[in-house]
């Protein structure tokens, strides 16, 4: 085993430890609970609203879309905040001070934020299946689609989060560089309402980004074929989904390592010290 593969294993073990620590942390439990409750309340309030153009009720259509949106949100904003914060608090500097530590760190982050989706999916899926009928129309094939859409979605979106986290000048900027664009994208990507209600050029922009395709892919996994009628071009566009998400994944795989290396090079005790002073002033 080479030192690099060894470091990847150590990093994955690190990610697993962080997952366990996260599940035990009241702060993270609170976050999952909040997301779960907020989503379920929104779905429950419109449980009897029919969706125009289909024979389905609102929760059936909205739940897959919301899952797609939350996955994109979680794996973009999660790593973005983690990297920005851990650059400032010295976690990354510690990683840099041990052999192959940055490699391990990055793999730990990949595992942490991938596995971090599981509790989020569970707090939405489990109560949803109890509260609402007619959620999964495609049985096992549908669940398999859920798995590949999520896997491809992760590859497409996680590098974006890492690049944002590695590039922002400080943690506060994640709000404007990361949160804001992601929320705007969620609003125009058909997550909260059908995107055909928006202008054509807005639809075009939304279709450039992976969030729309994640939502579409999730709907294609859960909903019957007839429901595709309300989508753009009236189909699930599975091939396009695969192509767009793969393109993002490839771009991310090429760009993220460059940005991460640049970030790693800039890590120094003085940089951490400076961040510490800035944060000290910021807090009060």
């Amino acid at each position, binding site marked *: *085993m*080479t*030192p690099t593969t*060894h*470091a990847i294993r*150590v990093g994955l*073990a*690190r990610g697993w*430890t*962080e997952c366990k*620590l*996260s599940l035990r*942390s009241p702060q993270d439990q609170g976050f999952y609970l909040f997301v779960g409750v907020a989503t379920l309340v929104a779905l429950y309030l419109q449980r009897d609203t029919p969706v125009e153009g289909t024979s389905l009720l609102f929760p059936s259509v909205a739940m897959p879309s919301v899952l797609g949106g939350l996955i994109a949100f979680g794996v973009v904003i999660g790593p973005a905040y983690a990297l920005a914060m*851990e650059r400032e*608090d*010295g*976690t990354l*500097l*510690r990683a*840099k*001070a*041990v*052999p*192959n*530590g940055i490699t*391990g760190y990055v793999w730990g982050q990949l595992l942490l934020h991938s596995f971090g989706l599981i509790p989020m999916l569970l707090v939405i899926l489990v109560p949803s299946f109890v509260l609402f009928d007619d959620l999964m129309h495609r049985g096992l094939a549908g669940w398999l689609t859920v798995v590949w859409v999520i896997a491809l979605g992760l590859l497409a979106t996680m590098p974006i989060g890492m690049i944002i986290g590695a590039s922002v000048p400080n943690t506060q900027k994640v709000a404007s560089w990361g949160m804001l664009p992601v929320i705007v994208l969620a609003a125009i990507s058909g997550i909260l309402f059908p995107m055909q209600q928006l202008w054509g050029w807005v639809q075009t922009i939304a279709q450039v980004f992976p969030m729309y395709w994640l939502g579409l892919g999730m709907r294609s996994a859960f909903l019957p074929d007839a429901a595709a009628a309300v989508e753009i071009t009236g189909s699930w566009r599975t091939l396009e989904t695969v192509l767009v998400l793969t393109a993002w994944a490839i771009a991310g795989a090429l760009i993220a390592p460059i940005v991460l290396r640049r970030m790693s090079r800039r*890590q*120094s*005790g*003085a940089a*951490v*010290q400076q961040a*510490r002073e800035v944060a000290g002033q910021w807090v009060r």
Partner: protein
Amino acid sequence: MAVIGRADVGPSTGEVANPVVSVDGLRMRYGEIDVLDGVTFDVARGEVVTLLGPNGAGKTTTIEILEGFRMRSEGHVRVLDQDPAHANEHWRARTGVVLQSWRDHARWTPRGLLRHLGHYYLPYATELRPRPWDADELIALVGMVDHADQKIGTLSGGERRRLDVAVGVVGRPELLFLDEPTAGFDPEARREFHDLVHRLSDLEDTTILLTTHDLDEAEKLADRILILAGGHIVADGSADALARQIETGTEVRWSRAGERFVHATGDATAFVRSLFEQFGDEIADLDIRRATLEDTYISMVRRHEATEGGQAAVTAVAAPDEGDRDRSVAR
């Protein structure tokens, strides 16, 4: 980046054979300002060297360049036979850095973190240096057995620093960097830390380079002290050697017939003997004070500030002036 090239043959200055750290003409420029302006020194294997200097003198910059955390503007730097700016991970495994933790790994425990970080060193174990250091053994060594399974976020400042030291040495480094290691330590923790440094240096054959503000600490720990002021090394030697270099040397105070005297001399024993030969029983309140490292330090930094031309300061130090001046202090 311009790096003054030099063939890697032989020791750089001739003073230290096969040095662990070799720095020659190191410059660091931020915009128009040279923070480091030709820093030159060597560190031999097993040495404990302290870098002293006023705030802003460039101690942290120097140490971060040697750690490979920062790129230099100019100069020749070799650390463990590699250029730290382009060193590989094998080199990284042989060095240890004690970082000042702040709020990283707040949810982890000291034991968990030491085990995790130690794992990275496993492929770099050698016959002479089994890597990593066993986490439990290390916890006992730095005296945090009682806090080993507590969340790091709940540790006190002193306990965190112990953990920082443990993290710095978990890979059994051949060369250890410490940037102000005891800032925030209480006297007892400081004493224990000094014991640990001695142990690392004596038993583990670790070369140690540290920066500090604490002159007492420098004197206790260091085989050699480097004083960095205005971007140069203005003094280089053991605490004793530095004290001998400056003209105050030893101060002899006494009183005779109600009048108090102070005399600075390089040889207090001879001076006091002659004093008694001359005045005998008339001498009272005899007090002999060796120049402390603090006196030396203040005097050297002041001298540097007065001359401002760094090279002039070094020559002044190199040629100590044995002035024998009597000063009478009227009371």
